[in-house]
């Protein structure tokens, strides 16, 4: 018996060893070979990473596969997408609150213990101060929080904390607080203020709710990052325009040698709100640092800093002064020591300022126009250089020196390393997100695509693997190992508890209450039930469409002729679409999403009778039709 167990154990160990070597071999083979081999993903095979690129002023998210750089899908977020009915069906329409434009900048994956957990993706809409949460279990936008009160342009946003306790937003524009006050721009210093907002995230379902706001000096808040490890509990925000200029910023806001990073102790801020130290302004609990101490500090950063990035260990805060040639590295231990010792160099509107020399750790001469920094798993940092159109690789720690540089095409803004802003970057790739593409692709006229480049980080030198164009305009991005995500492929029908869902042919019907008409419709290959809908002119018609399919990729569309009304209903889903019966006559509708061999036959008619024509309170489809559909659904 003992011997058998020994043999069994030995076999298990051997199996594990084989599995390990095979895993290693995969890795190694990925790093060797030509650039073409390294980005080639065979037909039918999958990429190793999901990359989420912000869609910029499209207001959406582009999903790419890496290393193939293939565009897989686009997730509509802040702007309507009529193809799938986003912003058309009642639920998403309510979420958009009438906005048809957003400018999405910084996707932020949810984290647990400082690493991506693959649950949600947050993204900001800068101009309208909104934050959206995309559920990665179905890649759908599920909440849009905001407009955040008092806050003008959420650029430093959302940059989640290590356990997704908070997402943040800070005002790019200072403005009067509350916003609905008429003042002159000339009264800027007296009347305008910045706002830093902490938005709480429910740990179970990701629901965002207002946590706190902090009233800040009227600077322009730019980017943010969360502390991790030893700096957990803090969020860092860069700002420029400490000159407090309100016009000709190009000149006037570039005069000071030093601007600031604001360091927010978000646990202290929440505690202050919970203890009642906040004033309610514009519906949000606002803390004034002049009255409530210990919540926020400033420390100087040279020359209009842009990006701020905390290294994987959480010890260093790296800020790039975009008008100088250095990355300034601050030690969190020194920041903490200065705060604890109360060593302040005065205050700005109630916010204590830490002395620069007391907190700075190193200055790394990276090159011209440093903007953002990402990290790998070997102790190196990668900083994008806008003016030099390069990425600089440098050592985090002594001698704080650049070890490699690579050209990018052209004028790089953000860069994104594989899991490169977490506690455990994978160190495999970085994607350069370029602001200009100029001559890199076939000429399509004056509106150039944006450029992006995949760069291999696995060797001693960075190596350019692939160029790919993107539509306007990714800013920041996130890259997560594919095995961390497990999206569904259909919505299980038995979990569909939508109030207007129907699951049996016998329940298909048209109900009328006054001028409101509710159409309970089901779709399954290849018909609508009912497919003849009788209404009167002037009726408010709500189509509640349930897709009874449970097969992969069998989505149906519901588009009405002579209208802007169309939506896609995924397998197992119920969606509601409103349509006003404006014109007497026959108004056809059809399946707008190719579904099957008889897709062209999938259609129906709305009969619009003159107003006041008598119609039954409940109409049901032809019993023969119902029986036929019921027979088809016999197994449901």
């Amino acid at each position, binding site marked *: 018996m003992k011997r058998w167990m020994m043999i069994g154990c030995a076999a298990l160990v051997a199996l594990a060893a084989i599995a390990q070597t095979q895993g290693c071999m995969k890795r190694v083979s990925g790093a060797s070979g030509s650039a073409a081999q390294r980005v080639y993903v065979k037909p039918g095979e999958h990429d190793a990473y999901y990359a989420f690129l912000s869609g910029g002023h499209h207001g959406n998210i582009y999903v790419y596969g890496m290393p193939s750089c293939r565009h897989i899908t686009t997730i509509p977020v802040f702007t309507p997408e009529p193809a799938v009915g986003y912003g058309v069906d009642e639920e998403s329409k309510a979420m958009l609150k009438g906005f048809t434009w957003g400018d999405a900048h910084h996707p932020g994956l949810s984290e647990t213990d400082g690493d991506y957990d693959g649950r949600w993706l947050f993204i900001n809409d800068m101009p309208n101060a909104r934050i959206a949460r995309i559920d990665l279990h179905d890649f759908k936008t599920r909440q849009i929080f905001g407009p955040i009160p008092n806050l003008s342009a959420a650029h430093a946003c959302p940059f989640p904390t290590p356990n997704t306790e908070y997402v943040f937003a800070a005002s790019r524009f200072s403005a009067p607080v509350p916003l609905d006050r008429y003042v002159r721009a000339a009264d800027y210093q007296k009347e305008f203020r910045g706002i830093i907002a902490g938005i709480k995230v429910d740990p179970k379902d990701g629901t965002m709710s207002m946590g706190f706001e902090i009233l800040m000096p009227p600077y322009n808040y730019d980017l943010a990052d969360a502390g991790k490890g030893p700096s957990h509990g803090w969020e860092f925000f860069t700002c420029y325009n400490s000159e407090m200029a309100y016009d000709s910023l190009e000149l006037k806001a570039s005069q000071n040698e030093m601007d600031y990073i604001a360091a927010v102790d978000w646990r202290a801020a929440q505690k202050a709100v919970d203890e009642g130290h906040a004033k309610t302004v514009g519906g949000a609990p606002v803390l004034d640092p002049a009255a409530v101490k210990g919540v926020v500090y400033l420390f100087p950063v040279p020359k209009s800093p842009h990006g701020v990035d905390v290294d994987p260990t959480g010890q260093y805060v790296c800020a790039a002064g975009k008008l100088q040639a250095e990355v300034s590295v601050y030690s969190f231990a020194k920041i903490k020591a200065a705060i604890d010792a109360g060593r302040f160099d005065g205050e700005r509107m109630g916010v204590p300022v830490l002395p620069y020399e007391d907190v700075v750790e190193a200055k790394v001469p990276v090159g011209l126009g440093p903007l953002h920094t990402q990290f790998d798993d070997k102790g190196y940092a990668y900083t994008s250089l806008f003016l030099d159109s390069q990425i600089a690789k440098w050592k985090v720690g002594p001698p704080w020196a650049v070890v490699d540089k690579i050209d990018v095409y052209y004028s790089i803004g953000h860069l994104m390393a594989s899991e490169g802003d977490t506690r455990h970057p994978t160190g495999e790739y970085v994607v350069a997100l370029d602001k200009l593409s100029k001559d890199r692709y076939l000429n399509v006229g004056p509106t150039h695509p944006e450029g992006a480049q995949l760069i291999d980080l696995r060797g001693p030198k960075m190596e350019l693997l692939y160029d790919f164009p993107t539509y306007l305009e990714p800013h920041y991005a996130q890259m997560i190992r594919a095995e961390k995500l497990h999206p569904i492929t259909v919505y299980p029908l038995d979990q569909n508890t939508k109030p207007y869902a129907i699951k049996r042919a016998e329940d298909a019907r048209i109900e009328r209450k006054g001028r409101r008409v509710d159409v309970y419709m089901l779709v*399954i*290959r290849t018909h609508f039930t009912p497919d003849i809908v009788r209404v009167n002119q002037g009726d408010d018609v709500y189509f509640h469409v349930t897709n009874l*399919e*449970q*097969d992969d990729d069998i989505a149906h569309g519901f588009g009405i002729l002579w209208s802007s009304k169309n939506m896609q209903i995924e397998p197992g889903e119920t969606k509601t679409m409103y349509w006003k019966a404006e014109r007497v006559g026959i108004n056809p509708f059809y399946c707008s999403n190719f579904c*099957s*061999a*008889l897709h062209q*036959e999938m259609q129906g008619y709305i009969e619009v009778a003159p107003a006041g024509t008598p119609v039954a309170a409940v109409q049901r489809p032809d019993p023969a039709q119902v029986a036929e559909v019921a*027979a*088809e659904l*016999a*197994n*449901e």
Partner: protein
Amino acid sequence: MTRYLFGSFAAAQRQLIVVAAVLLLPVFFLPMLPIWHLYMVAPQYPEGLSLHIFTNTIRGDLDKINLLNHYVGMHAITPRDFREFAYMPQALTLFGVAALAAALLGRRWLAIAGWLAFTGFAVLMFNDYVHWLYRYGHDLDPRAAIKLQAFTPPVIGYQKMANFRVWSFPGIGTWLLGIAWLLGPAILWLERRAPAADDEDAPKAHDAA
């Protein structure tokens, strides 16, 4: 001959009959082992669609298959349509009990009668299964969108049907039933010198009775 039939088995053969009964157990008593599979692959279904037939039900991608079948006017496949599922587990239970009884009593006639009945039942059920396949492929709704020539899906083995490649093969349940069935002739072969042994055993058996 009569003496042979009314004779009893040696201990080793009795154990083999118990084995046969035990083999039948998971197939009928807890219908957890499938007796037949149909596996279908099409260009747009590279992952394949499966039907798994048990003694008391059909599982697998029924809904997906029925949805596709409605285009050609095939009847929806639903477990409710099969009376067989109501008696098949019970019938097999009976054979299992018979085998156990034969093992306990050691009576050759009981074992042989049970084996013959089991064989007959298997032939009937296989015939029934072929009939069902024929019916599904022939009783097509004349109003169907796609009009097919009547067909019979493969009873066993491979067949190409429209855009589907179809494999049909017995499941582990049937393999177990087959082994149980084969134990019949195997025991008889082991017993080929039995009459001689019987003469010695017979008095003991009478004493026990």
